């Protein structure tokens, strides 16, 4: 026989599981992922930035400087020769990235609204 207390415990457990699920799987704002040589060196939650913030990293093609704010991120300067990464401009949407091949660096915006694609060709 299920007693009233059992039901209370059951309801409590379900509530706890629900809260846990919310904590674990809730969407977040955009996160800037900085990857150098295939390794994630930093993850920056853009929503936590109070103002424009500069970040600097050593890469295989020299020092790279990144400017990030709550809206997005861009590469300000790079030690690479072609500066294609600097010319790429600012990324603002989840799923967008800037690639610096000589510097083996990727800046990627990740977040809950990321386009549900498994890959991109082109």
């Amino acid at each position, binding site marked *: 026989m299920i007693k009233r207390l059992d039901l209370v*415990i059951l309801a409590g457990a379900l509530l706890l599981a629900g809260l846990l699920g919310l904590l674990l799987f809730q969407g977040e704002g955009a996160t800037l992922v900085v990857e150098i040589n295939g390794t994630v060196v930093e993850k920056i939650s853009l929503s936590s930035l109070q103002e424009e913030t500069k970040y600097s990293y050593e890469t295989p093609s020299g020092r790279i400087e990144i400017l990030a704010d709550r809206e997005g991120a861009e590469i300000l300067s790079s030690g690479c020769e072609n500066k294609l990464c600097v010319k790429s401009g600012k990324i603002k949407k989840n799923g967008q990235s800037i690639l610096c091949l000589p510097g083996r660096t990727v800046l990627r915006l990740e977040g809950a609204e990321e386009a549900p*694609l498994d890959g991109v060709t082109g």
Partner: protein
Amino acid sequence: MQKRWKRLFAFFLLLSFLLASCTGDRQYSERGYAMGAYISISAWGNMPQGLLGEITGLENQISHRIVDSQVSRASRGEAVEISAALENALTLCGELTERTGGRFDITLLPVTQLWHFDEGGALPNGEALSAALMQVGYSQCVSLQNGVLSLPKGGLDLGAVGKGMACDLAISRLREAGGHGIVSVGGSIGLLSGEGSGEYRIGVRDPFVKNGEGILSVISLAEGFVSTSGSYEKYFEAGGIRYHHILDATTGRPAQGELVSVTAVASSGALSDALSTALFLVGVEEGLALCAQYGAEAIFVSQDGTCVATKGLSGKLEMAEGWEVVYR
């Protein structure tokens, strides 16, 4: 009371099982660089070890930029024993040279070196270009017998097929390991289906949107290989004219056709990669016939914004707003 705690314990046990089952197969991912490209591997179920190292190993065999590669040694006059994968890729490329009337040709290295696209690009001197073109021609440059490669003259640039070969290698290792997933080497993608993998969604870059921010279509595929060649990838401007990196081997100059990008879907990575370049060079009409010969599918995007796809892709494409496709 004790009974009640037992019930509670059983409930949490059940909950743990339910949560654990939600996560499905374990996911693995590996990222890095090889072949001058960003490589991303996402696998489920199982992931072979050292895949990035193997791709670098392949690059060391086939890149003309690596002094001791099989291809470089052959261009210095050595008869070099090559891998079956390289032999197959060379045979495929030779066939494509024939089928494109010589416009696609991997022996174009003496010409590509004059354009300096790796360093930002520069217009070659006309005389030097003519002289370099004399060194080009698959049938006269490549000798391939029983897995031994020799190059009586010229050199090989496998840029049009190398990334696809890397996808082939990675997907084959993934299959051997019993996993499934997606491998991306630059713009070439390999897909391997597995239990519960369903269809993968691959975005095709919009060639008219700067910085790769736009997608013109999404292809849904359970398995296969996808590659794209576009005139927007590498180019430079001189005297108000834009020069892109997809060179026609009959002229030694950028292809002058109507296309801005071609995406090829094929049964192997080497084929999808080489075919995307070959289709770009021959244009839509000849390209459709070429696709039929290889049982491949393609999306052709022209400079005027029209988009043509092979009929086999009907029902697999989800066009972005503002884009229309004609199936032929």
